[in-house]
């Protein structure tokens, strides 16, 4: 592998955060920590998508100078992954808020956030 650039570093960070999130979802017992792990998983995935859209030595896809407005395609990074990540962040927010409200409801029901106390769907 040749010189390590910003795209490799951010990709590696994305993978690490995603793995941390997965580990948290599988092994934590506190419901709030599980919800946090879901957001970590989301964040890692978003970082990976943005890192894949990065192109070396190119600038943000915002055409605010006259120089960028000619021959745009050879000067900017990929705008599509960024737009998709914007959608993904908003949906992640919706999912997280729903999960937190479920957690709140569960806590009001049994006064416990320990996942092992909830055996209703276990057999």
């Amino acid at each position, binding site marked *: 592998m040749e010189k390590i650039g910003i795209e*490799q570093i951010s990709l590696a960070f994305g993978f690490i955060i995603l*793995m941390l999130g997965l580990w948290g979802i599988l092994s934590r017992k506190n419901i709030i920590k599980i919800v946090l792990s879901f957001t970590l998983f989301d964040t890692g995935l978003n970082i990976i998508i943005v890192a894949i859209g990065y*192109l070396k030595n190119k600038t943000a896809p*915002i055409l*605010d100078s006259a120089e960028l407005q000619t021959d745009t395609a050879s000067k900017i990074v990929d705008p599509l992954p*960024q*737009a998709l990540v914007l*959608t993904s962040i908003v949906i992640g927010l919706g999912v997280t*808020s729903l999960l937190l409200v479920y957690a709140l409801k569960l806590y009001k029901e049994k006064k416990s956030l320990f996942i092992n106390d909830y055996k209703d769907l276990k057999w």
Partner: protein
Amino acid sequence: MLKNSLILILILGFAAIMLSLFLSYTPSEDLKGVSKHYAEYGKEEVGAANLVSAVVVTYRGFDTLGEVTILFLTASVIGFFLKVNHSKDDENTAVKKYSEILGTSAKILIPLMVLLGVYVFINGHLTPGGGFQGGAIIASAFVLMFIALPQRKISHKVLSAVESFSGLSYVLIGVLGIILAAGFLDNQILSLGTFGSVLSAGAIPLIYILIGLKVGTELTGIISNLKELQNEQ
């Protein structure tokens, strides 16, 4: 423990997949396919200086409509879950005390935060930002208000009226695109204007204002539902 070793095996398996993905990654040099089209023709076709906004609102506007719908569904499900009776709210909120510093600084900061949010979504087609970001900033101003000035009330009727109005207008603008321009959510129903000015990019500023209002009111609604539940206990 069997369970822990299963988790370990699963994590290691995933890590192996991730590692092989990471090692086989080669950075691409040029834009390809649809991204290339967006970069080359985005200026003529959409006229938004921020190409991400052009993709979000026009090229993939239908996705954004779905996204707004998901946020709306989340807000309504939360409202349904946290159903509270509004009758005995007043006596509970009066008990809560806030610090003088927080209350005074909040009074100065809240209008500025709302202004910043409006700025972010009106300039969404020129600068980084847009309807969702601006809406989130406006909602954070209201969160500050809920914390610092708990005696202030927000009318749920006004919130849901603004929300329904902006959602409905968003769909109507999309339908106007079918009638006046090339297709659903096409931004050329208004003239594209001069590239780089605030009144440019056709319907994008209009759509972003509506999205900003909708996201702001939805998030405020979620927070105020949570707050009322807290007051009830």
